[in-house]
């Protein structure tokens, strides 16, 4: 779980990428974000990095609405930069 609520672009994607770096391929990591750009940028990042978005949903808590995107990490996870 990566909580990027309240952060603006590109910070949520940077947080998510940092988490992905330390996790093995096959892990599902979920990012929470309030930045409207995240709805596009999480799937775009996943496409560029060889990961797969498995679920996108809107959630409501007492703090307000946010987006939750679950990403299945591909083979570039856990290894840092992959060219």
């Amino acid at each position, binding site marked *: 779980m990566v909580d990027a609520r309240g952060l*603006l672009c*590109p910070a949520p*994607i*940077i947080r998510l990428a940092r988490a992905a770096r330390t996790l093995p391929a096959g892990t599902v990591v979920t990012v929470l974000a309030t930045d*409207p750009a995240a709805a596009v940028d999480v799937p775009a990042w996943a496409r560029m990095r060889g990961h797969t978005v498995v679920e996108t949903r809107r959630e409501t808590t007492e703090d307000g609405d946010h987006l939750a995107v679950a990403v299945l990490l591909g083979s570039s996870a856990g290894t840092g930069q992959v*060219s």
Partner: protein
Amino acid sequence: MPVTGRVVLDAGGGAPLLPAARTAFLAALDEGWADPRRLHSEGRRARALLDGAREAIAAAVGARTQEVDLAPSHTAALHAAVSTVALGRRRTGADVVASAVERAAVLNAADFAAARGGGARVTVPVDRTGSVDDEAFVAALARPGVALAALQHANGEVGTLQPVEVVHAAARAAGVPLLVDAGSSLGHVAVGDSWDVLAADPADWGGPPGVGVLVTRAGVRRSPDRPQDEDRWFPGGVAVPAALAAAVALEAALADRDEADAARRALVGRLRARVPERVPDVDVAGPDEHRLPHVLTFSCLYVDGEAIVTALDEAGFAVGSGSACTSSALEPSHVLAAMGVLTHGNVRLSLPRGTTAADVDRFADALPGVVGRVRQALGVGDL
């Protein structure tokens, strides 16, 4: 000798004024300063210049002079096109069909006009290259209750040419007028005749700001929705010098359109290849083929859009951006979002006429260092 001049690569909707347009503007200040509504010689001279401008624009787009209206801006032309046609066809319906990547002025006007008539905006999606789903568009405009449909000739942010011919044929069959926004096309590529209402932007082809073009084919039903005025569609009219300079600029732009197309298409093609070669983790938007010759957009992963625009400006390059962090809005470019292209770290290039290979090479040489420094400042070099 070091090259230190500015390189402007952000000409969309605001290109540097063409020399012929500047000359015409200044001449019209002397010759056409009077109110064209007056009956004296000075007024009639201004009227003649204004009518000449409309005539030249009409000839350039293949229309009759009386079909051409001049607006105070491209935005005003688009707003009026949508709202007056919607009002004119209110008995048929109130829905407005539009692609997801229309200019904000079209989408906002569609929402406004549809809501006023009790209808809805029907938004048709695009694919990853920004090309509208023509089957979905045709299906949407064939449904009952559609006042008008709007499809741009080409997208000014990413360069994608839209399937206006097939959509116009279907719109004609359905009896629905099609508004084509050629605001990024006219003066750069052939616009054709697949439209019922055409809007174009002189500032985009090297004319002055402060004037817009709206062409409405005879037979398209529209109703004015402004207070009565001698200038029925754009109350108050437009500045004569701006109108004349817009027409002169269009003639100049069309005279060397094919050369300017070939030159800029080659330069953009060079950048399309070089940028992803030299900068890691770049998402290049738009199609390789079937695009405007002078537009290129790409996004750099983990980069803040405002930071890259500012850093490129300091390095001597004027570029645009569709990232949220570069506008007052929190929302990123609706065009990039509709296409699924990375929205942060976005750089939008629109090459003015006369851009040289040296300009483009300087940009390609400077970009990797600029992106690298921004990424280093954000501490994302290891990602």
